[in-house]
């Protein structure tokens, strides 16, 4: 009896320390990433359009994001009179839960991981579906036509691209026979999976651009037709929570792509964490680059591209993978 209690305390104690350390680390990554990415996005946008971008606050405008976040904190918390209050308040909270939970299983290094759950990728996929729900709740609760149309579009888009996303991850699981992200990263010690699965990598990347609602698939928040899409009625701090979630999602999809296809934290000379961040931010940069290069697609093109091309191709890819594994 006494032994079991000590055992439980031991286990719980260890886990608690792990959680606290993990939480601190994850918050540094989340906030640092958001602050850095808002600055980078504006800087990249500026240079692609032959402007300088932000330059006034701090050296090279580096402190611009801090100034922006302080400004957002001081903004009035507006709640429009007609909104469905519970739903309206719930949406910004709900969109942040999957973002934070996903970080539990992402392996930053061989042991720098909050917890290696043996159903890791399922946890990520299950929680990331909550994002759609919160977008729908926010759009519906706002009682604004733009929000509602944006939300409905967003749901159609997200469910259309969720299937190619799943199907492009499956061949990797076929090869690694594991759901744990660390196992998958370890399985690429010799050759990265992108060498075996270039098509799956492309499909995953396209689908993840759509899942994060980035240009050229940013129809849910198409600013030229829908004002701001589902978060039209959100301002101040609530708006910035949506923003934070979006930038963190960019990091997360890139991190998953790196773990599944680009060898995760593997790399010569430099420590694993450094490699992980280099690869992840290279992919994030490609996402930023997309935004300032491609025009927005039409909505029927968007949906049909997924159903007519991405899904059949990923099915074929899956079958070929299954066949080759048997040889």
């Amino acid at each position, binding site marked *: 009896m006494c032994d079991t209690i000590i055992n439980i305390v031991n286990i719980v104690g260890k886990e608690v320390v792990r959680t606290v350390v993990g939480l601190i680390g994850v918050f540094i990554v989340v906030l640092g990433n958001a602050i850095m990415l808002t600055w980078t996005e504006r800087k990249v946008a500026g240079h692609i359009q032959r402007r300088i971008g932000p330059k006034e606050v701090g050296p090279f405008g580096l402190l611009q994001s801090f100034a922006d976040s302080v400004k957002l*904190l001081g903004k009035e918390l507006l709640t429009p009179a007609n909104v469905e209050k519970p739903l309206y308040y719930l949406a910004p909270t709900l969109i942040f839960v999957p973002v934070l939970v996903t970080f539990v299983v992402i392996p930053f290094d061989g042991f720098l991981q909050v917890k290696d759950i043996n159903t890791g990728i399922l946890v990520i996929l299950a929680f990331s579906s909550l994002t759609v729900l919160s977008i729908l709740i926010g759009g519906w609760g706002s009682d604004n036509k733009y929000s*509602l149309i944006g939300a409905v579009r967003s749901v159609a888009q997200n469910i259309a691209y969720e299937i190619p996303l799943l199907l492009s991850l499956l061949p990797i699981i076929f090869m690694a026979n594991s759901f744990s992200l660390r196992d998958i990263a370890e399985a690429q010690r010799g050759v990265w999976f992108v060498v075996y699965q270039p098509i799956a990598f492309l499909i995953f990347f396209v689908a993840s651009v759509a899942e994060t609602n980035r240009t050229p698939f940013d129809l849910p928040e198409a600013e030229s037709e829908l004002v701001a899409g589902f978060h039209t009625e959100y301002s101040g701090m609530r708006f910035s929570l949506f923003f934070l979630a979006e930038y963190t999602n960019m990091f997360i999809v890139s991190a998953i792509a790196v773990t599944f296809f680009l060898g995760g934290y593997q790399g010569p000379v430099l420590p694993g964490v450094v490699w992980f961040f280099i690869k992840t931010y290279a992919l994030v940069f490609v996402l930023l680059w997309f935004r300032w290069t491609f025009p927005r697609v039409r909505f029927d093109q968007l949906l049909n591209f997924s*159903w007519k091309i991405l899904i059949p191709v990923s099915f074929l890819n899956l079958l070929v993978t299954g066949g080759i594994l048997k040889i």
Partner: protein
Amino acid sequence: MQTLQEFFHVAVFAVVAVIFTVSPIVIAYLLAPRTAGKKTFVTYECGIEPFGNAWIRYSVHYYIYALIFIAFDVDVLYLFPIALSYTKGGNAFEFYSLIVFVLILALAIVYAWGKGVFTWKRKILS
């Protein structure tokens, strides 16, 4: 017990995420100014008085995509356990079962394609 322990972190992170999202709103509530203008709380609609509310019926003719999705996504989930236990080399039976399963799944797309779900008719003639 073992499986519950695995998800201990997930639960803690979810709770912390909720707390984290509430705290900046509380800070903003304490810091931010408040206005009492008449028009401040009106729903935004390009500067005009909002015309009724948003909860009206309108045509979303891509809802059929959602129907295919439901049929599809549930079935794709069955591929995950297959992927976990798929052996390399030998035992071709697994491969044949995979082909049969995927072909049956793909029928859903072929059916929808044939039904014309993926072609959008022009509603306004130009």
